[in-house]
C-alpha cells in the first residue's frame, strides 16, 4: 500500500485511511524529506542483575520463589556439566558429534521457566537446557546421543536432535528456521482448540536470516498466533560473526517491523530473561498475539565438536564473555538471597557428573534400534514397495552377516572411519 505509483494516489489513499475506510497504520505526514534510519529505533536491553548478582539500581525483580529459582539453577548447572562430559565423551570416540549450550543457559532456561508444561517448545538445536527443565532424564539424553534402542527418535538423527512428545518438545530438525512458521501454525491451532496453551519457538540470530523466519513472523502477526519467538543472539553462526550476518540493530527491530511486541534482554541475566518469559507468555495467551524476545548472549563454546573457533575469534573476546557467565551470576544472586551455598553447589555438580557418567556407561551398552526401523514411520504403514525393499535387504544381509549387523561398534563405528567431519 505504501508502494504507490504517484503522490496523488497516495493522498487519496491517505484521506481514505483518515476516514477509516481503509485499514492502515500511518503516523501522519511530513513536509520534510528525511529517511528514517535503523538507529531511529532504539531498543533497550532489559537488565536486572549486575555482574555481581545484585539487583541493579532501579531495576524491578520479577516475582520468583525459591523452588522455581533452584529448579532453574539446577537445570542450568546440569546442562553445563552435561555439555562438558559429552565434549569429553566425543573426544574419546564414544559419541560422533556434540553441540553445547554453553553461555546461553540463562537465555534458554530463564525463558522456558516462564511457560507451562502444556506449552509446545519448537527449538533449533542449542536449547537442550529447556528439555532438561521439562524433566528429560540423563538416560534419555544418552539414548538419543548414542542412538540406542531406547532413543525416542529411533536412532534416526544425529546427536542433539532431541524430541519428546511427553514433554511437549517438538523433535529437532537440522535445517535452520523451518520451525518458525510451523510454530505460528501450531500456536494458531492451540488457539482454535482453546486449550490455554501457546508455543515457544527458539532459534539463533543466524537462522533469522532464512526466508522461513520472515514468513513465520509475518504470518504469526497477521493471524494473531499465540507464539513467543525467543531469538538467541549469540554473536556467531558457525564462523560468521553477526557483523557479517546482519547490518541492522540485531533481530528485535524485525519483530517490531512485523507488528510483533518485542523485548530485548540481557541473555546472561537470569532474572531479566525470566521476567521477559513470564510476561511474554501472558501477553501471547491473553491477547492471542505473537511476542518476540531477543536474548543478547554469547556462544561460549565452539559451534560443535567439529568446529575450532580459534581460527575466527580471539581468546580475549572469549574471556570477556566467560566472565559474564550466566551461571556464575545466578549463583551469586542465590548466595545473596541465602538460598544456596558453596557446599550445596559442589555437591550438586559432583552428583550430576556421576549421574551423567553412570547414564553414559549404562546406555552405551544397550543395543542399536531394530533394523526394521529403516522402513517404519516413513509412512504410517510401510507400503508394499518398502516391504519388498526391506525383504531384499534382509536376504542380502543374510549372505554377508559379518559385513553388516555384526559390526560391534554399531552406533559409532562409521564415524571413526569417516575422512571428513560434519560442521
Amino acid at each position, binding site marked *: 500500500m505504501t508502494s504507490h505509483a504517484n503522490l496523488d494516489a497516495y493522498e487519496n489513499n491517505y484521506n481514505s485511511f483518515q476516514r477509516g475506510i481503509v485499514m492502515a497504520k500511518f503516523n501522519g505526514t511530513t513536509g520534510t524529506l528525511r529517511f528514517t534510519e535503523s538507529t531511529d529505533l532504539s531498543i533497550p536491553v532489559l537488565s536486572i542483575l549486575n555482574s555481581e548478582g545484585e539487583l541493579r539500581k532501579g531495576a524491578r525483580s520479577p516475582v520468583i520463589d525459591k523452588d522455581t529459582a533452584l529448579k532453574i539453577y539446577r537445570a542450568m548447572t546440569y546442562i553445563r556439566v552435561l555439555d562438558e562430559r559429552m565434549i569429553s565423551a566425543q573426544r574419546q570416540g564414544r559419541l560422533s558429534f556434540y553441540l553445547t549450550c554453553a553461555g546461553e543457559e540463562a537465555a534458554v532456561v530463564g525463558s522456558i521457566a516462564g511457560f507451562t508444561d502444556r506449552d509446545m517448545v519448537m527449538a533449533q538445536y542449542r536449547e537442550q537446557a529447556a528439555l532438561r527443565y521439562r524433566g528429560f532424564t540423563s538416560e534419555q539424553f544418552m539414548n538419543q546421543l548414542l542412538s540406542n534402542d531406547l532413543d525416542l527418535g529411533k536412532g*534416526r538423527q544425529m546427536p542433539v536432535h532431541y524430541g519428546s512428545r511427553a514433554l511437549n518438545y517438538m523433535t529437532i530438525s537440522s535445517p535452520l528456521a523451518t520451525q518458525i512458521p510451523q510454530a505460528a501454525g501450531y500456536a494458531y491451532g492451540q488457539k482454535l482448540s482453546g486449550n490455554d496453551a501457546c508455543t515457544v519457538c527458539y532459534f539463533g540470530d543466524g537462522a533469522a536470516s532464512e526466508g522461513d523466519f520472515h514468513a513465520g513472523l509475518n504470518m504469526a502477526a497477521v493471524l494473531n498466533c499465540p507464539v513467543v519467538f525467543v531469538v538467541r543472539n549469540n554473536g556467531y553462526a558457525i564462523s560468521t560473526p553477526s557483523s557479517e550476518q546482519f547490518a541492522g540493530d540485531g533481530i528485535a527491530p524485525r519483530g517490531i517491523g512485523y507488528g510483533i511486541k518485542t523485548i530485548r534482554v540481557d541473555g546472561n541475566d537470569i532474572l531479566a530473561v525470566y521476567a521477559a518469559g513470564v510476561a511474554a507468555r501472558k501477553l501471547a495467551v491473553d491477547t492471542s498475539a505473537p511476542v518476540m524476545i531477543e536474548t543478547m548472549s554469547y556462544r561460549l563454546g565452539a559451534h560443535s565438536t567439529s568446529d575450532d573457533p580459534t*581460527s575466527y575469534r580471539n581468546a580475549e573476546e572469549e574471556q570477556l564473555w566467560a566472565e559474564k557467565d550466566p551461571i556464575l551470576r545466578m549463583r551469586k544472586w542465590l548466595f545473596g538471597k541465602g538460598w544456596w551455598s558453596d557446599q550445596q553447589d559442589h555437591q550438586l555438580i559432583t552428583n550430576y557428573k556421576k549421574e551423567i557418567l553412570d547414564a553414559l556407561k549404562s546406555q552405551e551398552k544397550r543395543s542399536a534400534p531394530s533394523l526394521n526401523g529403516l522402513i517404519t514411520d516413513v509412512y504410517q504403514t510401510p507400503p508394499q514397495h518398502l516391504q519388498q525393499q526391506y525383504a531384499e535387504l534382509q536376504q542380502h544381509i543374510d549372505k554377508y552377516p559379518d559385513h553388516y549387523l555384526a559390526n560391534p561398534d554399531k552406533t559409532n563405528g562409521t564415524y571413526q572411519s569417516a575422512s571428513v567431519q560434519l560442521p
Partner: protein
Amino acid sequence: MAQINLLQAVNSALDTAMDTDDRVICLGEDIGKFGGVFRATSDLQDKYGKARCFNTPITEQGIVGFSIGLAAQGSVPVAEIQFADYIFPAFDQIVNEAAKFRYRSGDQFNCGGLTIRAPYGGGISGGLYHSQSPEAYFCHTPGLKVVIPSTAYQAKGLLLAAIRDPDPVIFFEPKAIYRAEVGEVPETDYVLPLGVAEVMTKGSDITLVGWGAQMHQLHRAAKMAAKDGISCEVIDLRTLLPWDVDTVAQSVEKTGRLIISHEAPRTGGFAGEVSATIQECCFLSLEAPILRITGMDTPFPLVFEKEYMPDYLKVYEAIKASVNF
C-alpha cells in the same frame, strides 16, 4: 604433477578460476576467512579480497537469488550451499528462475555465469539432513546442467568447465571422499568437457554406470567380479544433465548388460532415466533386465547407514544376478 585430494582440487579450480577471470566471485555461508566448513575455499579471501570471496547470511534462497542477479549483470558467481541437504530453500530460485532465465526472456537476459556448488551424499554418519543425494530433482529441470565428479582430476577440470559454461550448472561434490580420493592433478588450467561420460575401466560382459562417490563401490564390485571371470566395463557419467547416452549405449551394445547405481532413493532416481533410455535404444542387444542398485525409498538413515547404502556387495550380487539371468 602434484598428488592432491578432491577437496584440494576443488580449491585449486576455484583459485584458477578467480585468477584467470576477475569476474569470478565466490560466496556462501562461512566461506570467507574460515574457508568453508570443509575448507573448499581456503585462502581465497586472503588472495582475492573480501569483495570477491565473502560470507553470506544464512539464507540459501538469498545466496542463489543474489547469485542469479550477479550472473545476469555479467559476473561469474560460484555459490556454495553448505550441504546439498540445505539447497531446498533455494529450489524456487534454481528451478523457476536460474533454469528459465534465458528462455523466458528470449535470450535477452541470462544467468549462465552461475555455478552452484554443494557437498552431497552419505558415508559420514550424517543422518537424514547431512547425507542426501538430491541430483534427480535438478535433473528434472530443463535449463540446468548437473555435474558430479568422482576423482580429484575430474573435480578440477569439471568445476572449471562448469564455471566457464554458458549455462547455470549445479556441481555436487562427493563429500565422503573429499579427502580419501587422491590423485594427480595438474597445477595448470584445464577443463574437462561437460556432457561427456568417462569409461573408467574397459570390459566386455556387463556395463556398470554411476557417478560421484558411488564409483568407488562400482570399481570394488568390478574387482570382485573379475575374480569370478566377469569383465565389467565401468562408466562414470560425470555429467547427469545432459548425460552422455552414446557412451553408455555403445557399451551396452557390446556387453548386453547394464547396472546403474546411486545413493539416492530408487523411485524417481536418475537410474530410472538411464534405464528407460537404454532399453529404448539397445533393446535388441540386452541379455538381461537392466538393474538399479540404489538407496532405499526412505529418508537417509543414521544407525543403519551401512545397511541402506548401495555398497559394493550389493552391486556384486547384482552383477552375478545379471550375468546368470
